């Protein structure tokens, strides 16, 4: 397909603006740039180009999207309408508080609800994405130890099953990373943890459910071990969709948590953003929060308050406000009971698929998974040569988005499946049937899978060439 720049024909015009009503101002020549080349297309060319691009994109609205750890649930359309209300979109961020009471109310209401869901005492909406939230959470921890003059605490403990963002965020916040192995049940190895915690421990970062989709049963003991050593415990909210309304990070002993509104609260992912990564914390950390928080004063007016020992700003204004509106609309519609049902059904759907395929694809048995589970194609690969990647690519031929591949790193040939609560039994049955069929085909006709996809937009791309000789613009 041609690029929009390749469809450009000099002189074609699309959008137009009001003619200039005053004298044309010209700049001194030394200020001026050389030639500018942007696409020049008519409106119909533009409309067809982007419609074609949209047909070459696959979203939750296109089909089943069981991408583990990403919570690809249905994105209600009311979210879009709410965020698109002119009373919200046409608001400049630098206004007097009295002019933006509606925006501040939205921020306040979302903050309160997210605090209730996570069991935290305070929360900021400023971080723009999950990784940004991780960074902020760790900066709070750094500021906390610093204020207490506990300068030895330079290490963040991260399980070997953690997402790569965790250690990267820890380094961004100035920490060193210590890895702790998983035990035979693929939970945190308590004995190993006891060995690594000490007076240099700043915090432990954890997801619960773990990246294997299992609830960490020893969570209370784990958080106590870290607290007793003087460290704090960080909750990576990537997997919150399993437990909303059932159990709260705050009650498990976590001190700080980041959420992903684009995952758990359906704000859509937008092809990779914008997201929003609010950070909640216990009272001991609230004075360090970034930017401003909204408070409700005695007169019933919303006011901005700057935390007394703030780590500073991480976004120019109030974060991705438009995304926050979508999450608020979602939570308002679901309410307390709907939120819990969402998690319960996410867990049911995951267990239902797991049950349907676990005789063919090895996974954790003997326990219920949470909202997602990890299968291994190790045996399949050894016996047929068909790898996790080949199963994934073959799913594309069956009209489904592949699961997350090769994560977590501790499982060989891993595929991580997260169906989410909004999928129907029919869809889940179809997914089970497809995965069973592919398993059979792997033994009968492995070459077919190894060269998949056959009916996609493109065949497998040459990623080696893309990286060796990068072509990064048209």
């Amino acid at each position, binding site marked *: 397909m041609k690029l929009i720049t390749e469809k450009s024909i000099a002189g074609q015009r699309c959008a137009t603006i009001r003619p200039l009503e005053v004298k044309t101002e010209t700049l001194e020549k030394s200020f001026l740039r050389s030639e500018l080349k942007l696409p020049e297309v008519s409106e119909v060319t533009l409309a067809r180009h982007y419609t074609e691009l949209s047909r070459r994109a696959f979203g939750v609205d296109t089909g089943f999207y069981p991408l583990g750890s990403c919570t690809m649930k249905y994105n209600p359309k009311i979210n879009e309408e709410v965020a698109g209300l002119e009373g919200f979109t046409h608001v400049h961020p630098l206004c007097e508080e009295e002019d933006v009471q509606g925006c501040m109310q939205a921020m306040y209401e979302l903050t309160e609800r997210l605090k209730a869901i996570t069991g935290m005492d305070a929360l900021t909406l400023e971080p723009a994405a999950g990784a940004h939230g991780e960074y902020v959470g760790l900066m709070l921890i750094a500021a906390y130890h610093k204020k207490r003059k506990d300068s030895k605490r330079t290490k963040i403990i991260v399980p070997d099953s953690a997402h790569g963002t965790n250690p990267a965020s820890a380094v961004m916040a100035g920490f060193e990373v210590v890895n702790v192995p998983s035990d035979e049940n693929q939970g945190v190895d308590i004995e190993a943890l006891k060995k690594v915690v000490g007076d240099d421990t700043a915090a432990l970062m954890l997801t619960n459910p773990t990246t294997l989709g299992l609830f960490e049963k020893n969570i209370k003991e784990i958080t106590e071990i870290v607290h007793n050593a003087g460290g704090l415990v960080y909750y990576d909210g990537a997997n919150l969709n399993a437990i909303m309304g059932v159990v709260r990070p705050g009650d498990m002993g976590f001190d700080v948590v980041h959420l992903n509104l684009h995952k758990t609260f359906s704000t859509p992912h937008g092809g990779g953003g914008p997201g929003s990564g609010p950070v909640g914390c216990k009272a001991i950390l609230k004075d360090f929060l970034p930017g401003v928080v909204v408070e409700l004063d005695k007169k019933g007016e919303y006011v901005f308050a700057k935390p007394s020992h703030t780590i500073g700003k991480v976004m120019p204004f109030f974060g991705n406000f438009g995304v926050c509106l979508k999450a608020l609309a979602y939570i308002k519609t679901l309410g307390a009971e709907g939120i819990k049902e969402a998690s319960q059904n996410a867990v049911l759907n995951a267990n239902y698929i797991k049950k349907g395929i676990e005789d063919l694809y090895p996974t954790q048995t003997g326990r219920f998974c949470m909202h997602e589970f990890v299968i291994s194609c190790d045996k399949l690969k050894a016996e047929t040569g068909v790898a996790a990647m080949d199963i994934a690519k073959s799913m594309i031929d069956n009209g489904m988005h592949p699961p997350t591949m*090769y994560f977590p790193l501790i499982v060989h040939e891993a595929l991580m499946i997260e169906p989410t609560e909004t999928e129907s039994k029919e869809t889940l049955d179809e997914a089970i049937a497809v995965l069973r069929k592919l398993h059979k085909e792997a033994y009968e006709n492995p070459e077919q899978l190894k060269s998949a996809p056959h009916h996609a937009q493109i065949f497998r791309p040459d*990623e*080696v060439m893309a*990286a*060796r000789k990068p072509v990064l613009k048209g």
Partner: protein
Amino acid sequence: MKLMYAKTHEWVAIDGNKAKIGISDHAQHELGDLVFINLPAEGDSIVAGESFCDVESVKAVSDLYAPVSGRIVAVNTELESAPELINSDAMGAWICEVELESEGDDLMDEAAYAEFIK
């Protein structure tokens, strides 16, 4: 000249007080198509057993560990734009040359290495 291998799959060709370093053919095969090498700088000192460089394939990055200690006197900058040379000729594609200070522990000769990777 003496050719030795480290357990971490780097080779070192020692010639007097100079030593050239690369990665073994076995290693390049395991790593797959290399797309980039993060070369060390001339003048840097490297320490046996410590990471001195990393190589990237499409979906992985791997540290390379120094088989010997010494100061880098030359770097094979050709690899900067053509890391694939390591895939096509691992033994020819030297990464850097050092002024040798000391050899690392547990270096193997060719036969021992061949046995090691069996």
